[in-house]
């Protein structure tokens, strides 16, 4: 496995647009899931009157997901192309589970945006695109899915393509560099090879687009930082945190510290896709075991780093934010939810220091009383609970955040400086 470069791929998009079916199809076509398993799922799903979800069941393994036909939590699976091996994260599209999508997307190097051709751009299409950009995903592939349900119409494809391109442009992706593919996850069109159903489409099929992705540079000279995505207690082994190495290198035997708890111990084992490794590098999605770490010392959102240079816990931090949407005004005292790497913490706006011109970055106003949609600003922020964050100038991977309130993403930002908690 080590001879192929590794990529983390998130599959994002609005609820029911076919993300899980798409991932299931991809796993099937690349041989990661055997045909007999799909047959088995088909039979079982049919019994429940959910036959169309057979492919989605590859990723939707929870009982409640299968019963309702909705992805709730993220899960990681491996598949290979001839060039890369991928860890794919199937994100939930339902608005109530955006917080889980953020966790998944925060671990990705690239994303496939699935947009159902009959529907076009919907609320979470926008939100997911914005969040991906905010969380540092620079490579995107757009699958205009369910083409079979749109009569494989070239016109409809172009309409959706135009709509999505506009959205991408607004968020700062270069739409002309983003590949668009008309697909049917259900029928398998344009996944491995060009489909006869879309003779008007001359571009590459999905697998080729995946091969065309570039491996992001590995920031392995920065200090080690692994945001914890989850922590499992496994009998006989102990506490096993899982997460993606963002920066630096972790080696077996190294002394590491989890913040904010401060728990420190020696790395006993590192595992990725059920194989043991001696070290982990940026991009690796690992489970690791640390001697002497209890179940309450680690939870989602904590960060693991070297004992001699532990992750920063912010008493306060200053950030530069851009307000994407907000129905009214944002003032001091506002306490929305901040998402940073895998952490989710309510934070209070303590001061609005400067209002900036969002285009030039020039200061427009000192100490404004409020900011609103479209404004950029430098603000002082105080987490309501201990939270790990780093200045983007030092560790960019841990300095970006998204702000949510009222069931929507209202702003994005990056951390400029941190006042460390004593």
């Amino acid at each position, binding site marked *: 496995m080590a001879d192929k470069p590794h990529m983390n791929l998130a599959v994002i998009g609005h609820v029911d647009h076919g993300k899980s079916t798409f991932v299931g199809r991809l796993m099937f076509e690349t041989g990661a899931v055997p045909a007999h398993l799909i047959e088995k799922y088909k039979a079982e799903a049919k019994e429940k009157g959910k036959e169309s979800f057979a492919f989605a069941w590859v990723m939707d393994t*929870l009982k409640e997901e299968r019963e309702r036909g909705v992805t709730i939590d993220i*899960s990681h699976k491996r598949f290979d192309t001839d060039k890369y091996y991928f860890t794919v994260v199937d994100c939930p599209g339902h608005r109530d*589970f955006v917080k889980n999508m953020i966790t998944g997307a925060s671990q990705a190097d690239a994303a496939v945006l699935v947009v159902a051709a009959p529907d076009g751009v919907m609320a979470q299409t926008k939100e997911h695109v914005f969040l991906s950009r905010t969380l540092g995903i620079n490579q995107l592939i757009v699958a205009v899915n369910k083409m079979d349900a749109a009569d494989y119409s070239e016109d409809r494809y172009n309409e959706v393509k135009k709509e999505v391109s506009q959205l991408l442009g607004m968020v700062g992706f270069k739409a002309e560099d983003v590949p668009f593919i008309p697909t049917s996850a259900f029928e398998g069109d344009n996944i491995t090879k060009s489909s006869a159903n879309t003779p008007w489409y001359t571009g590459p099929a999905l697998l080729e687009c995946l091969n065309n992705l570039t491996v992001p540079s590995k920031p392995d000279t920065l200090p080690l930082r692994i945001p914890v995505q989850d922590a*499992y207690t496994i009998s006989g082994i102990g506490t096993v945190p899982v997460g993606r190495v963002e920066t630096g290198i972790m080696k077996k035997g190294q002394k590491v510290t989890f913040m904010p708890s401060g728990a420190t111990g020696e790395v006993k084992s590192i595992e990725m896709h059920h194989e043991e490794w001696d070290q982990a590098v940026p991009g690796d999605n690992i489970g690791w075991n640390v001697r002497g770490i209890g179940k309450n010392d680690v939870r989602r959102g904590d960060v693991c780093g070297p004992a001699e240079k532990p992750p920063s816990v912010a008493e306060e931090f200053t950030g530069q934010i851009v307000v994407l949407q907000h*129905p009214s*005004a944002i003032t001091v005292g506002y306490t929305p939810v901040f998402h940073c790497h895998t952490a989710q913490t309510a934070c209070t706006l303590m001061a609005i220091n400067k209002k900036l011109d969002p285009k030039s970055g020039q200061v427009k106003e000192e100490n404004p009383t409020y900011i609103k949609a479209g404004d950029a600003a430098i603000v002082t922020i105080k987490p309501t609970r201990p939270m790990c964050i780093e200045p983007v100038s030092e560790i960019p991977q841990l300095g970006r955040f998204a702000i949510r309130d009222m069931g929507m993403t209202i702003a994005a930002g990056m951390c400029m400086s941190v006042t460390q908690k004593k």
Partner: protein
Amino acid sequence: MAEQSSHQKYEFKKKLESLRGKKGRGTELISLYIPPDKQISDVVSQLRNEHSQASNIKSKLTKTNVQGAIDSIMSRLRYGTVPENGIVYFTGAVDVGANKTNMETTIVEPPQPIITYRYHCDSSFFLSPLEDMLKEAKTYGLLVLDRREATVGLLTGKQIEAFRKLTSTVPGKQRKGGQSAHRFQQLRLIAIHDFYKRIGDAASEVFLSVDQKDFEGVLIGGPSPTKEEFESGNFFHHEIEKKVLGLFDVAYTDESGLPELVNAAGERLEDLDLMVEKKLMQQFFRELVSDSGKATYGEDNVRENLIIGAVDILLISEDLRAVRETVKCTSCDYERKTSREFKPGDSSSPTG
């Protein structure tokens, strides 16, 4: 009982705050609570009794002050009838600094009926019966949950407070190698059931600790399908079970989920002060960012608009404490008005 307007409440609060700041030199400030059904003649005879007992006070100054205060109240009582909710007198020689005292009386008509007659003589005024009237008693139980965590809280008046936070051991999607899918699912269902039971117990405990006559009901929030499953499973104490008001879609299940739940349940809670205020603030902010010119802020702008009669809704922060000072020159036309903010209890704070 008539509902108090928010302005009346504000004035009432301010009055209590100023009374709280007043101190006597000795035990010589008198608080007298007269319930609506009390006969004035009874009160007067009791006061006479107190007056004669006060003659035993050793300190001459204190004795004079206490008797003076009782005299002052008695003289006022002669004309008074007891209003609908009763009446409270706060009288005494208040320390005004620079080694001086000042005999002062404050009369309060409370917003709610006074229950018990009280005569209280101390170095400060006795305010707790009135302070209790300010407390919002109406309480809602809040619960947000998913498979991973749950938070239990209470909404009392305008206050949302988290009381318990629980995290589950329900396995996520990462299955340990070697475990059969079926067995994994069984274990998971058991873990979910246990978690719901823990949530039900913790929430019931918090909700039952509230005086049940003030307990309006329970709001449950969370993503589907967890909250529905929880609700249909009888995990609450049976007394609480009856009080579930509704289920609401909420994404967050930590402390951030509680305000989200209150918002989601907005229509159910429409009459609550909290929601009324929230709506007003939203309206203000919306006008503010729309550049309609219909909203303004800051003392000077607001005053200007008040003077020309252009104000429809006036919002004042409860925390605002400021005095208006006018500086006038006696020999020329010079006059200047300024506002100065202060902290209650500071030496510079204006009393009276």
